[in-house]
């Protein structure tokens, strides 16, 4: 069934607002940090792991195949909004002291890569975007899980009051380190494969985009590594810390239940990072089919 362009454009815009709220894309993102900060850990994991993917899944299931001409017509503004989300989200994340708020803003930035990738209309872009959807579900869920685990012990998420996690809770700090690398897209982790495909797709489509993506990636490294350092090692300002006295004391490390939960995610960090072929193969034919309809 092929719809006329005015109808396509009208319904595309309706669906776009629905999915953009869900993703969330700039400028519909303001509900996300509040929801994450107040939600219990499981709520944050569901929100970041699956609910945000509903938006991008909607683009893949509704917008691209049903309204291909409207998708092409609106692709430039959507890519611009995605670039704003990537850079603005990354800088907002960099400014946060609340761990959950930091990871929430990093989600906005990372979801920006995905929406950008889906509207590149080339194979690397869409496959990279879908792989990043899966990766983001794994990595960000695991990060929220880690934030929840430490919050349960200290009852604060204020990074200014942390330090020395690597000394007192070494296993926790080790797992958080792996997840930090996955989040910034370090080679051998899942984030690398996804971001690489998105970058290749962007380069293929419109070269200057790579520049903006690079700003997002570099800022991403900055805020994630800084969060890890502030949590795990000497806080800035010396051993006594710049901030007020806080729970910089010994807390118990991960128990069996928490280790199983974190390892379930970390397994996929390396599975996708070291052997992405099966994950790409599973989506390959459907993406080809989708592209044959969108490319027109």
């Amino acid at each position, binding site marked *: *069934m092929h719809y006329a362009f005015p*109808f396509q454009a009208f319904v595309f815009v*309706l669906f776009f*607002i629905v999915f953009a709220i869900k993703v969330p894309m700039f400028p519909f993102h303001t509900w996300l940090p509040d*929801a994450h900060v107040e939600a219990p850990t499981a709520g944050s994991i*569901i929100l970041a792991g699956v609910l945000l993917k*509903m938006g991008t*899944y909607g683009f893949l299931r509704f917008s691209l195949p049903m309204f291909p001409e409207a998708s092409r017509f609106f692709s430039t503004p959507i890519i611009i909004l995605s670039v704003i989300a990537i850079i603005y989200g990354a800088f907002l994340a960099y400014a946060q002291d609340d761990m959950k708020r930091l990871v929430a803003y990093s989600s906005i930035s990372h979801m920006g890569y995905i929406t950008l990738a889906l509207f590149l209309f080339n194979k690397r872009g869409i496959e990279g975007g879908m792989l990043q959807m899966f990766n983001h579900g794994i990595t960000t869920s695991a990060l929220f899980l880690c934030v929840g685990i430490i919050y349960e012990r200290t009852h604060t998420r204020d990074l200014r009051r942390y330090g020395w996690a690597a000394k007192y809770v070494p296993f926790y700090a080790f797992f958080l380190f792996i997840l930090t690398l996955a989040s910034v897209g370090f080679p051998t982790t899942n984030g690398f494969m996804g971001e690489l495909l998105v970058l290749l797709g962007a380069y293929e489509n419109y070269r200057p985009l790579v520049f903006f993506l690079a700003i997002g990636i570099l800022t991403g490294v900055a805020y994630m590594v800084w969060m890890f350092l502030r949590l795990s090692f000497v806080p800035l300002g010396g051993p006594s810390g710049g901030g007020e006295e806080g729970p910089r004391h010994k807390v118990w490390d991960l128990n069996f239940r928490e280790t199983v939960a974190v390892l379930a995610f970390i397994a996929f960090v390396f599975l996708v990072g070291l052997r992405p072929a099966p994950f790409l193969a599973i989506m390959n034919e*459907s993406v080809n089919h989708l592209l044959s309809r969108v490319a027109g």
Partner: protein
Amino acid sequence: MEDIFAVPLFGGHILSVITFLPIIGAFVLLFLKNERAARWFALSVTVIDFILVIPVVCTFDVTAHGMQFVERYSWIPSFNIQYYLGVDGISVLFVFLTALVGWVCVLASWTAIEKKVREFMVSLLVIQGAMLGVFVDLDFFLFYMFWEAMLIPMYLIIGVWGGPRRIYSALKFFLYTLAGSVLLLVGIIAVYFKGGGPSIYRP
């Protein structure tokens, strides 16, 4: 390996089983009084659901682009509404992700949730089923139902078990997503009346 799965899983109803197992589990959980039992029950349901998803991913035919594990029945014929489930290469990974996140969420709230444990686990199971439903459903009507069904448990999870400003955040989440849902309904009705069938999958 191939022979084990040669027989259609659950007589070809594997996606229905995966989707409705958490929802049925949530109803059963309503009758459990013990908090400890509620945790173990929710964990069992989500782990079984995860185990059931594994054969779907493993036997997924990567050489085909169409829908697989399809279940298609007429439901409300006068409005052309169907019960139509299936997964393709776009949705199958997210079905897997949802099932994985499900049991990890139960583990993550094992000790973190102290009050109203049973009600919390019921919310988790309902949202689990609804999320799976969104990814496997291919009919406009049922898709919209599952999409809406995700909203309420999430609102409760934030609003009842959240932090100090939970009411504000839950309401903000609810209003944003409700606005989205209304537009989704308008869009679905527009496409439905324009023709092209009631399915959200257009091969």
